[in-house]
């Protein structure tokens, strides 16, 4: 379990670094797919197989196909001249390091709460992952579910409007 965790962590962090350091957007997109697969491995380690499958289907499948399609549409050979200037790099690194220091301080230094809920991973494994999520999605979180469907509808209209010939 521990070995698997470090394996996935290495893959995730390495491919995330590759995403932001590659020159070619297509290479970045492929490394991002690798990162999503590593994160799906994390979800399996955390006993959430349903979310792992959704991660691969929605992120690595749908969204990344969309990104690669757009890269193809935009005639990639012209994009190589897009570079970073030095000041931007320095500011970015400083902000990222400060952000990371804050996260580490609050994660390591904070108190760990006792488990409060009753839904342990043993219970989830006994009932079934999809069943538990479906039960909560359609009882306690029904309103959010409906609002999510409206959001998707609005996104369809928005994407259509932006992709039209005349803005």
């Amino acid at each position, binding site marked *: 379990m521990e070995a698997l*965790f470090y394996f996935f*962590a290495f893959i995730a*962090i390495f491919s*995330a670094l590759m*995403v*932001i350091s*590659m020159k070619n*957007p297509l290479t*970045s*997109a492929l490394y*991002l797919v690798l*990162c999503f697969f590593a994160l799906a491995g994390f*979800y399996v380690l*955390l*006993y*959430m197989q*349903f*979310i792992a499958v959704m991660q691969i289907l929605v*992120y690595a499948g*749908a*969204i990344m196909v*969309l*990104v690669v399609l*757009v890269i193809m549409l*935009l005639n990639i050979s*012209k*994009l190589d001249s*897009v*570079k*970073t200037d030095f000041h*931007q*790099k320095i*500011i*970015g*690194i400083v*902000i*990222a*390091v400060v*952000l*990371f220091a804050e*996260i580490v301080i609050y*994660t*390591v230094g904070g108190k*760990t709460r006792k*488990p*409060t*809920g009753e*839904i*342990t991973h043993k219970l989830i494994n006994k009932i079934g992952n999809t069943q*538990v*999520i479906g039960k*909560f999605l359609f009882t306690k*979180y029904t309103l959010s579910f409906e609002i*999510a469907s409206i*959001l*998707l509808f609005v996104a369809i209209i928005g*994407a259509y409007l*932006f*992709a039209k010939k005349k*803005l």
Partner: protein
Amino acid sequence: MNNYLIVAGIIFCIGALGVLMRKNLIIVFMSLELMFNAANLGFVAVSNRLNLISGDIFVIFVMVVAAAEAAVALGIIVAFYREKGTIDMDKANELKN
């Protein structure tokens, strides 16, 4: 759980670095996706540790929002490219001056 949160923090910071550092709009968009995913990992780790299910439900809604955001953002990128002929972020300066 701490290990998972640290990994999520590292990925989030890499994503933030990409947003701040790169000028290519598509790579900035992919860095945003990285940050979404880091937040998702944090949600799942915490809700696993505290025996809750709400974090996992929230991850599904984050995925819905990310899918909607992807569709709209890529539409904007295509429109931007059609207008300017490039996807350099610094060329988006109509509101300057």
